[in-house]
């Protein structure tokens, strides 16, 4: 089993900011937009180096999404940025009509997704955004796992033509992927090969899955861990290949159980051979205030929870 180590912890939103700084230097069409959350989105370097390509929208997210759609008509590549809550649910109709249905090359890049936003509580902890965005025809949905991967994904989505929802977060977590990785949209990343159970994780849950894999190995269980950074389009081939080998699976995401990664995988598998699947996700509940670690534990999104789920999945195999 491959061992993953890290020398530093960073937030994925800083990976986004670093990616934007690179894009500012390499792609003259990239425009950054923000709805009064410049510091939270780590856009300072981009704005300092490209003030003419930054649009401060104020607290007007609907207008920001509409303007982003308009900017693409002149060949610009706008990154509309805010918290995930305000960049998805609040502006769903704007995204649906002006961006997705209108086939516009808008990148909706959002931070503070999920429970790990922490103390601000449930009003800001969007847990339904993957479901909403995944339901939109033509929308690409990406949830990278660490700083380096978020930076690489940011650069990759600018090169891709079409609407993208890029989701990342606030907590500092281990940086364990390569700094010079090439991000391939829609291509699952094999974290660790195994034979007993497949663990498909996205976003912050990938590191939890890696730790779970080590804990399972100590108990003689050989888990296959796959990072599904792109929830749509889903890498169906990689998922099917893995479950065919292992015979059961766990999906893990910082999101509601309804409509997210686990649902996407279940929709895929049920059309062929169904396998026992356990869901690590928030179970039809809003979040609350607390530290990220407390919340992940209370809502069952830790490595320990993944270990228990993996054992349940294995036990359900015939």
């Amino acid at each position: 089993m491959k061992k993953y180590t890290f020398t530093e912890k960073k937030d994925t939103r800083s990976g986004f900011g670093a990616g934007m700084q690179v894009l500012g230097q390499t792609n003259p069409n990239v425009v950054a937009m923000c709805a009064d959350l410049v510091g939270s989105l780590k856009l300072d370097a981009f704005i300092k180096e490209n003030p003419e390509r930054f649009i401060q929208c104020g607290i007007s997210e609907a207008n920001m999404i509409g303007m982003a759609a308009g900017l693409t008509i002149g060949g610009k590549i706008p990154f509309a940025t805010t918290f995930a809550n305000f960049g998805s649910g609040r502006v769903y109709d704007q995204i649906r009509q002006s961006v997705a249905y209108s086939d516009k090359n808008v990148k909706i890049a959002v931070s503070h997704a999920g429970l790990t936003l922490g103390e601000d509580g449930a009003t800001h902890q969007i847990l339904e955004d993957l479901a909403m965005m995944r339901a939109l025809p033509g929308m690409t949905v990406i949830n990278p796992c660490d700083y380096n991967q978020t930076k690489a994904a940011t650069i990759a989505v600018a090169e891709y033509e079409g609407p993208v929802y890029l989701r990342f977060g606030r907590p500092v977590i281990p940086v364990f992927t390569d700094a010079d990785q090439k991000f391939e949209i829609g291509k699952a990343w094999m974290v660790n090969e195994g034979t007993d159970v497949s663990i498909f994780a996205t976003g912050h849950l990938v590191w939890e899955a890696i730790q779970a894999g080590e804990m399972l190995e100590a108990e003689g269980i050989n888990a296959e861990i796959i990072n599904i950074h792109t929830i749509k389009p889903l890498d169906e081939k990689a998922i099917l290949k893995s479950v065919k080998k292992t015979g059961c699976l766990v999906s893990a995401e910082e999101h509601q159980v309804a409509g997210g990664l686990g649902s996407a995988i279940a929709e895929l598998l049920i059309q062929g051979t169904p396998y026992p699947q356990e869901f690590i996700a928030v179970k039809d509940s809003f979040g609350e205030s607390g530290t990220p670690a407390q919340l992940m534990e209370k809502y069952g999104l830790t490595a320990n929870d993944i270990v228990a789920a993996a054992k349940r999945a294995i036990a359900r195999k015939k």
Partner: protein
Amino acid sequence: MTELQSIASQVRRDILRMVHGCQSGHPGGSLGCTDLLVALYFQQMKINNRKGKGGYLSFNLDGKGEDLFFLSNGHISPVFYSVLARRGYFDVKELATFRKINTRLQGHPTTHEGLPGIRIASGSLGQGLSVSIGAALAKKLNGEKNIVYCLMGDGEQQEGQVWEAVQFAPNNNVDNLVAFVDVNGQQIDGSTNKVNNNRDLGAKYKAFGWRVVTVDGNNMDELTTLLRKIKRLVGKGQPIAVMMKTEMGQGVDFMMHSHKWHGVAPNDAQLEQALAQLPETLGDY
């Protein structure tokens, strides 16, 4: 009749026949805004006149070097489709497919079916001004001098997003933008005054920092005079808002002075009665 009035008469016939043909759609606002769209597309706007495949105007979605028009109140799609077809973007015969299965002329405008002339989907209200501002900002970033025009309904002014956009544009010197508000005083459930009073829209736009002008949107002479003036008003640091007074159902006596024809199609007899009031000038499709 001037040439523009003559085109407008034909466009009004198209609108009625399209809506009658599928027994659905929105004739009222379409008839009211006909004069504006004709004046914009046949006189005011700088658009690419190069012809492409089939002899139709070649359409570039990017609109580089062109003036752009965005229809925010997408339900008046019949007037938009007729004007685009009559201007040469596609065959006028295609107007007969309006709202029918497999058509490019969807109930509300969309880029999704590839209809030339459409640059954004609209229908869910309140979004077009934001899109227009974005397109205007892109023109500035690209160093283009063209003008972006946007048309909204007055009922649409009840949408919150409109006011996010109204606040943004003057604060960011979006002065290559002209927003028309179709002030016909009607919406689906009745008069705008009764449903949710907009009060003094012009004063509101002015307070937000717009240069506000008014016009009779059903008087072609007044309209074209104003549009000429507008070309001198752009680029002066302020976006321009036009409070355009129109009559819903303009040109068809029994459709005027009421909100009842907002979204109702005429029957055979009503169509005949309506068409008798509008000369066929360019040939029906």
